[in-house]
């Protein structure tokens, strides 16, 4: 069985430009264009976050769509389910806005929409081949790959480091 693709983060590559956040909000707007999105109500929201960590690390965070998703187990109204691609989704019709999902999410990547009164999070851009945040990243800090491919690349790089350290 082929592995599904995930959004992975190469934390050493992020420069904190926040392009991913803009692209995400635009991808979740009605017009799907930046110049249209800035005038829309409700305001389109980004589902990806970039945190700054001392001394100077920029860390993009986005829903990991956990295999055992705490949010899904915690949702009291049964609004959260996993689709056939493994993407954890919130059914906004069922969401009652209790924010339990926000409370239990280990990454803090579920948002509270103040205008729609619903929880929102990454939906992996179902209409796109590659999620908008990944396409927008100018440094390649965000990648859309299978876990096998991502860890394979990490191993390759680690092997090179090891060889170099051995001289």
């Amino acid at each position: 069985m082929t592995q599904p693709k995930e959004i992975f983060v190469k934390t050493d590559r992020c420069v904190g430009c926040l392009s991913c956040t803009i692209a995400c909000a635009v991808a979740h707007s009605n017009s799907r264009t930046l110049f249209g999105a800035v005038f829309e109500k409700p305001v389109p929201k980004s589902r990806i976050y970039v945190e700054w960590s001392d001394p100077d690390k920029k860390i993009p965070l986005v829903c990991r769509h956990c295999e055992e998703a705490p949010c899904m187990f915690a949702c009291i109204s049964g609004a959260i389910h996993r689709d056939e691609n493994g993407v954890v989704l919130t059914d906004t019709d069922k969401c009652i806005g209790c924010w339990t999902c926000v409370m239990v999410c280990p990454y803090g990547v579920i948002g509270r929409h103040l205008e729609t009164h619903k929880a929102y999070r990454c939906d992996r851009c179902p209409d796109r081949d590659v999620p908008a945040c990944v396409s927008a990243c100018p440094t390649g800090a965000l990648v859309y790959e299978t876990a096998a491919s991502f860890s394979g690349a990490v191993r390759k790089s680690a092997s090179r480091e090891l060889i170099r350290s051995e001289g």
Partner: protein
Amino acid sequence: MAYDEKILEKSIDPSVHKMLSRAAELHIETAWDRYEKMLPECGFGELGVCCRNCNMGPCRISPFDDHGPKKGVCGATADIIVARNLVRMIAGGAAAHSDHGRDLAHTLLMTAEGKSSGYEIKDEVKLKTLAVEYGIPVDGRTKEEIALDLAKAAYAEFGKQEGFIQFTRRAPEKRVALWKKLGIDPRGIDREIVEIMHRTHIGVDNDPVNLILQGLKASIADGWGGSAIATELSDVLFGTPVPVRSQSNLGVLKKDHVNIIVHGHEPVLSEMVVAAAGDPGLVSQAEKTGAKGINVVGICCTGNEVCMRHGIPMAGNFLQQELAVITGAVEAMIVDVQCIMPSLGPLSECFHTKFISTSPKAKFPGALHMEFHEEKALGIAKEIVQAAVDNYRSRDQDKVMIPEDKTECMVGFSTEAVVRALGGTLDPLLEAVKTGKIRGIAGVVGCNNPKIKHDHGHIGLVEELIKHDVLVTSTGCNAMACAKRGLLLPEAAEQAGEGLKSVCQALGIPPVLHMGSCVDISRILTVCAAIANALGVDISDLPVAGAAPEWMSEKAVSIGSYVVSSGIFTVLGTVPPVLGSPVVTEVLTRTANDVVGATFAVETDPVKAAALMIAHIDAKRKALGV
């Protein structure tokens, strides 16, 4: 030949299709490829909400997230940041145009003092007219004496601290009074630009409207100051353009000639290159190398300048500069300042082309720098042409691919030439406007931008305008797009509406008048002022409109600003980086009408843009009662 859909969607110009296909074959990248690699472009930049004016930042305002930053570190809101960035763009554009004007004043000064080589005062009539405008005595004086005073007076406009810039007084009295009332009547060209840099420094002007007003002030100093000086003094030195026939597009390069491209903006250099290329010694040397002669052609505004004064063919507009080199037939690409892509250096290395920079202000990686000075202008120009001639031997004819596309054009409608074409007075034009044969007049100008299908923005708009009886005046890259399309020919009147067609046919003029380079938009302003004065109204009352369908440069921002400040509604074909600020957007697209009597509009579809302009023209006609 059938091209890839991807290539076809990049331009409407068949020569571009051919050359992009050739570039792909040779694995050479162009601006279009680099644009694609740049996508998606930074959204903060597109909205104008990033600020790098101090080192507490860089700051950027989140356009969406309520938990994202809504203010810069200093407290600047999106409105403040967008306004600051916008007026800095105006400062950049006004500086570029005006420094061009300053160079012309310098050349005139040196020529008057007898210190320049190869230059002369070609248009004494214009010299005297301008001198009178400046209150410089002309009777019983030599042209050098008059020119010396005029050059000094023009020079002084840049560093002036108080008073006003002389050419701004060509504007109708009502307009000047409005500028004074608003505090945007510029005092000196450099001063207004410097003041923008001061005001946008951390912690100075933080009122978006106050910032924009200063932007307008600097832009007026450009359009009615620096650019007008560039235009007028170029005419004095090199002759006021009169209609002349020429050709345009990459097909003007010749397989069996030494091809020299002059590219950039100031005629100071290109005029001398044209003169040097006619030197019999150099021509015979070219022939000895096996070439049939020396073929000088132009790109960008330099192309417009030498085309309208000498009929030198125009090889293409901004986005064709790389394609010209890719023909493999260019011995030398000689550049001065503005709109010259730094990619030309590495690109020229793929061919035998010598990329020669000449201005101490503009050096490029991979360029051969042959610095140009007025004192030895002709001598240096000959050395440059010599380098091109010598390079013909290095050309690999197997690598040469010149598209055959070229179109006839008629260029050189200076204000004076327009009046002459009308029979010595503006009356026939006014009459045609009154009767409705000419519905209105549009100024369509500006760059190319890979964000818009090359030339589609220009041609789509201009064809729609003339079809609806709007007479088009054109400069810069728009003028070249129109030239390539055949719209600069009297025969193009066939494509115009019945009214415009009859006027063009009666006068033997094209429906699109080539008025020159981008600084020559000052000519369009002069015509508008003359029409308004003849009717006793302000420019903002006229059935006129402006457009920059494919704009990209800071100069275009300054142009748009002075055109709107002059009272002319202006449509932009690419979105300016201001939408991150509701206040600035509102001011530019609505409030400005109550302040200067004109606004900006943004419309990326050229046909819809034409509709906006026509609706504006019709509203103004109604208000005038014609």
